[in-house]
């Protein structure tokens, strides 16, 4: 279908973009890679009066280091993330999960920041950034603020960004020395996760010293499997991991849709968590 009509601006700086958003108010929408927004416009599920295209703002694309943090600019595409040497070295979980997002053509346009701002519970990257203890840097008319991943996702398709704020960068603590794995369950290639599990594991003396687990699509927001994370401390073999994974669905609120019941999603969460942790810990 043909999208509804809207006005279009293509600012050349973050300040200019923020001004345009502030003037547009609730009726303005940021356009990044467009891989979620354009399908919504085509299906006439969104009716912005103003589209603010941030795709050409210099300096928003790319990955850099800042001490112990990895800083990923808002216009860094999924394709960039998958291939970036810094991401692969310090946040391998993100590169691995991003490689499962959509297909090559979508990955050429879609951005990490766009996926996070879109806050789709079935999106793979929110749970990954949550497991990595990442933070988002937003810029608005009142200046810059940093939002921890655990406070960023508010509800279904809703982040804590204000309408006049631009997400400018994503900051991830370097996860050097952590084993990682993203386990995604979907029915057909290119489709969204029915459930996804992002696992990070730090081992010491042959045991799991610390584990962090993010869950995709088990609530209206991404979740951490905290009960399993705690139970994994000290786990030294596959049986201990399997026992800890039994509590992976605690505190989740999975939805019902054409492809799965909540109970089936809970079952998947337990099974996929076991697999993801074993792979991350190199015990598989």
């Amino acid at each position, binding site marked *: *279908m*043909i*999208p*509804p*009509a*809207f*006005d*279009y601006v*293509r600012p050349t700086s973050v300040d200019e973009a923020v001004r345009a958003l502030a003037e547009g108010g609730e009726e303005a929408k940021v*356009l990044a890679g*467009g*891989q979620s927004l*354009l*399908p919504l*416009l*085509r*299906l006439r599920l969104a009716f912005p009066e103003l*589209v603010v*295209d941030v*795709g050409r703002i210099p300096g928003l694309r790319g990955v850099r280091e800042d001490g112990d943090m990895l800083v990923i600019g808002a216009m860094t595409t999924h*394709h960039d993330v998958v291939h970036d040497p810094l991401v692969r070295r310090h946040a391998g979980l993100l590169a691995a999960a991003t490689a499962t997002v*959509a*297909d*090559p*053509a*979508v990955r*050429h*346009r879609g951005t990490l920041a766009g996926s996070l701002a879109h806050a789709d519970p079935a999106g793979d990257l929110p749970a990954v950034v949550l497991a990595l203890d990442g933070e988002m840097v937003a810029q608005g008319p009142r200046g810059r603020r940093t939002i921890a991943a655990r406070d960023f996702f508010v509800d279904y398709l809703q982040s804590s960004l204000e309408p006049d704020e631009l997400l400018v960068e994503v900051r991830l603590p370097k996860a050097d020395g952590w084993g990682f794995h993203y386990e995604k369950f979907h029915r057909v*290639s*290119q489709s969204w996760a029915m459930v996804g599990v992002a696992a990070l594991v730090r081992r010491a003396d042959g045991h799991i010293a610390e584990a962090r687990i993010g869950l995709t699509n088990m609530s209206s927001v991404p979740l951490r499997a905290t009960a399993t994370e705690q139970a994994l401390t000290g786990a030294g073999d596959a049986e201990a991991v399997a026992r800890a994974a039994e509590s992976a669905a605690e505190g989740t609120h999975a939805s019902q849709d054409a492809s799965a019941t909540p109970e089936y999603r809970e079952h998947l969460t337990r099974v996929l968590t076991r697999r993801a942790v074993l792979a991350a810990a190199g015990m598989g």
Partner: protein
Amino acid sequence: MTHISVKVDGTTYEDDVEPRLLLVHYLRDRLGLTGTPIGCDTSNCGACTVELDGVSVKSCSVLAVQADGSEVTTVEGLAHDGELTALQRAFHDKHALQCGYCTPGMLMAARDLLREHPHPTTDEIRHALEGNLCRCTGYQNIVRAVQAASEEEVPA
């Protein structure tokens, strides 16, 4: 209206377009380049795949205004003077199409793959084409064609 300048298959076009105009509609309805079809409303089928500044994109999921200042290659820009590229010839030789609706997108997606991986495995070919749906062939011959093209000396 927004003014755009886009180079498509080697020719530069200057136009005033509505911001909501999709690149695929610009190519088809404005420029008459109907070699790029539209197969879905959900950005899933990949039939509309073109190259934008050297990488594959779904032209139904890009606004024409986003292509301002860029270079677009469509399936119509592949052959020169009626001479098919190695990849196109391989699709013909290996019977990689039946109705042909998915073929422009398959070709553009496969070109992208061969640029990054000149000698892909069949697994890599299948993964690279996961955003392109074919209702006819069952994919086997498409995979064979891409592999055959990758074995030729001439670049796709």
